[in-house]
């Protein structure tokens, strides 16, 4: 038995081995079948050195290293296929797109230096930067842009970004530095969507060499290159020496360590084992008075909501939904569940500055139990016994459900809180058979998603059986508007309709929390919770 144990120990107890990083060798890219991890010629330090635990100096032999404590592992790194933030935060740094969003969520040049939009709003002509190289050394041209978008639209790729680019009719690449994308009809979110991490431009030969799947390899041209990915342990990115923006990136190496437990991340930050990490509200409150770390708070594009199944009595009566809106005290939820680190919102959070409406004066947001009870009486509804589901692993959802339950009891609605495991929750969500459901939405980077994806009759996330022809027509008009002012007008109307009809109550738009070493400079917080600030951030010593 001891022999068996010893054999097992010898055979299997190595620190997890790194899969080969294929895109980095400067010769033609090698397929993923290489047996030993290759040390990329241009990268900094050897891959297998287990540098995880000890207090490392942040300067390695060849430059600065930023160690980040990440809460979740990415399932894969293929930009077209991975929606999870845990993944996008990593490949956001590996792939360039046509445009990039600034902190106000407006598209700025990235691979495309300039662009023209035809007067009818259907033709976008992008003029690409010259001399951009993929990580495997090949020059990036318009053909690559065309290939990438066609790959996303191709149903066989099963890309999660497909619906963003379905409006594309065809793509031309008249010369290596010009891409012309022609849409079937004008599409307001299109330019913002070209900045999505999922629209990262990929090198075709790497896709082909890996059977169409980029989950474990690097086919990008962005500021960082993938050096090593050991799932559930460590992801290492190194600086792209050929990156086209001078002075960027400012650090030579980023190492993501996976640390699910927040207390452990905080401890690691304080001891200097990591220099950057993500926190919850509680963690932020712990660290904000600690002068050895910098704790920052910023808005997000996500909000918590109370969803109501518009087909199920008594929630089919608009008076009942409005009564619920008057009974739910959003400020109480903001203070107790989010510890004050959130704000009231509509379907479009205020961080989407160009599109959000002001919700500070909305009548149905002001708690009014008398009005609520009156509305319930008018609807002839009393003594309601119902259920309210929430995802058990997200404490803010369960906590909010408890608070809402106590608020609804005051108007005669007894909603039993049901914390559900994620698979069951998603199942119920999809089946549209819930009564009440607490949840969270990422409203996205553009109003079409925030409004129509969730609340148009055929919106993929409209699981509330809600239908309002006015909202549908606002959505359709807004999506194809060629004029910003016209689009704003219809989206404003749509938001007001949705708040009035109340298929969802918008409870709070919560903040995000990050903490990092005071040595980290030039980091900007992005409302979409991605970390492109790591490209400009520098580590002083």
């Amino acid at each position, binding site marked *: 038995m001891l022999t068996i144990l010893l054999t*097992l120990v010898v055979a299997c107890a190595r620190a997890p081995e790194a899969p080969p990083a294929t895109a980095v060798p400067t010769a033609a890219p090698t397929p993923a079948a290489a047996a030993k991890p290759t040390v990329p010629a241009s990268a900094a330090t050897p891959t297998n050195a287990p540098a995880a635990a000890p207090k490392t100096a942040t300067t390695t032999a060849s430059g600065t290293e930023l160690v980040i404590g990440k809460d979740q592992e990415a*399932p894969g790194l293929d930009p077209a296929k991975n929606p999870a933030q845990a993944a996008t935060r990593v490949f956001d740094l590996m792939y360039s797109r046509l445009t990039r969003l600034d902190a106000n969520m407006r598209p700025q040049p990235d691979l495309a230096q300039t662009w023209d939009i035809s007067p009818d709003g259907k033709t976008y002509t992008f003029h690409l930067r010259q001399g951009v190289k993929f990580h495997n050394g090949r020059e990036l041209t318009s053909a690559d842009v065309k290939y990438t978008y066609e790959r996303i639209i191709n149903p066989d790729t*099963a890309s999660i970004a497909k619906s963003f680019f379905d409006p594309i009719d065809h793509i031309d690449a008249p010369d290596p530095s010009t891409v012309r994308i022609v849409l079937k009809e004008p599409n307001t979110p299109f330019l913002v969507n070209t900045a999505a991490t999922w629209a990262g431009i990929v090198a075709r030969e790497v896709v082909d060499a890996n059977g169409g799947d980029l989950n474990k390899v690097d086919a990008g041209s962005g500021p960082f290159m993938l050096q090593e990915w050991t799932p559930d342990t460590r992801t290492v990115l190194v600086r792209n020496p050929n990156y086209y923006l001078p002075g960027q990136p400012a650090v030579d190496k980023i190492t993501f360590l996976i640390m699910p*437990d927040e207390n452990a991340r905080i401890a690691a930050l304080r001891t200097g084992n990591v220099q950057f990490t993500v926190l919850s509200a509680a963690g932020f409150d712990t660290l904000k008075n600690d002068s050895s770390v910098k704790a920052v708070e910023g808005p997000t594009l996500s909000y918590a909501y109370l969803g109501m199944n518009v087909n199920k009595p008594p929630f089919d009566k608009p008076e009942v939904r409005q009564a619920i809106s008057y009974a739910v005290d959003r400020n109480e939820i903001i203070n107790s569940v989010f510890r004050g680190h959130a704000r009231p919102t509509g379907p479009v959070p205020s961080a989407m500055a160009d599109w959000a409406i002001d919700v500070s004066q909305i009548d149905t947001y002001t708690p009014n139990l008398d009005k609520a009870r009156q509305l319930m009486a008018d609807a002839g509804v009393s003594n309601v016994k119902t259920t309210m589901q929430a995802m058990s692993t997200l404490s803010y959802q369960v906590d909010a459900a408890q608070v809402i339950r106590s608020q609804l009891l005051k108007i005669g609605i007894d909603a039993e809180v049901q914390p559900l495991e994620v698979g069951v929750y*998603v*199942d119920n969500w999809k089946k549209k058979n819930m009564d009440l459901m607490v949840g969270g939405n990422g409203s996205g980077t553009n109003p079409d998603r925030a409004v129509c994806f969730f609340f148009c009759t055929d919106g993929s996330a409209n699981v509330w059986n809600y239908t309002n022809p006015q909202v549908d027509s606002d959505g359709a008009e807004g999506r194809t508007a060629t004029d910003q002012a016209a689009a704003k007008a219809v989206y404003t109307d749509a938001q007001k309709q949705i708040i009035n009809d109340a298929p969802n109550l918008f409870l709070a738009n919560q903040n995000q929390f990050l903490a990092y070493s005071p040595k980290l400079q030039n980091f900007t917080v992005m409302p979409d919770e991605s970390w492109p600030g790591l490209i400009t951030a520098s580590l002083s010593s």
Partner: protein
Amino acid sequence: MTQYVIRRVLAIIPVLFGISVLVFGLVHLIPGDVAQILLGTQATDQQLATLRRTFGLDRPLPIQYVDWLSHVLVGDFGVSFRTDRPVLPDLVQRFGVTLQLTLVSMLIALAVAIPLGAASAANRGKLSDGLSRVIALLGLSIPNFWLGTLLILFVSLVLHWLPPVGFVSLLDNPWLGIQTLILPALALGTAVAAFIMRMVRSSLLEVLRQDYIRTAHAKGLREFTVLYRHALKNAFIPVLTVIGVQVGYLLGGAVIIESIFSLPGMGRFLLDSISNRDYSIVQGGVLFIALIFCLVNLSVDLVYGWLDPRIRYE
């Protein structure tokens, strides 16, 4: 004896078979659509159908089971739905981490429990006995995750003696590796030590009452010799049972400790896979742990024979 071993090993097979049916059935009974969880709430029905077809999830359950089992019998545990990586190499690798943690935890536990238990038994009724028993009670009562967090706080943050989190394999770098393993091993080993210590104590007390112990004293042997050379060996069989159970339990992975200390072990691996409905990993993982547990039990039974020559195997 060889016959006994062979028979025991063969007896593992029906056990594993039964477990395979159980775990396959249970995992597929959990509500929640794999495809939906993997692709997220924005997947189209067509994408979901494609995924189901790729992984054969649209076939009847018995056929899926037979297909999976026939692959397992030739060593192919399939691939993860989420990451496309083959299951067995990852399982073995994660198990290696858990194995190292278990070994260090057991070493610490035994190093504390045996001397403490023996001293306690030998000094029964005295102050040292009472103190040891209180310590054992504390060890049993303190939740290991709380202890783990406390250890990180004091040892890493305040004293800066050891790194708070992370894992380095003992085989890659023994010095660094032991540093990363001490704190989690302490957190885990405390309860185990308490268990074992009490067993050592009570079992030794039984043995110390025997006549041959009195004879040994009468012969003039030192207390230490009596205790460690004569009494302990005979007292060890019930202790060994407890050790076997604890080892088996630890080898299944300590999810919370692994999360707190960021150790890429079996516990976290399986828990994440259950949440993700990653059937291949859950099925393969549970089968793997069952096999290990059976082997541990077998080893414990064999060691009985070495400890007590009176035990015969037929």
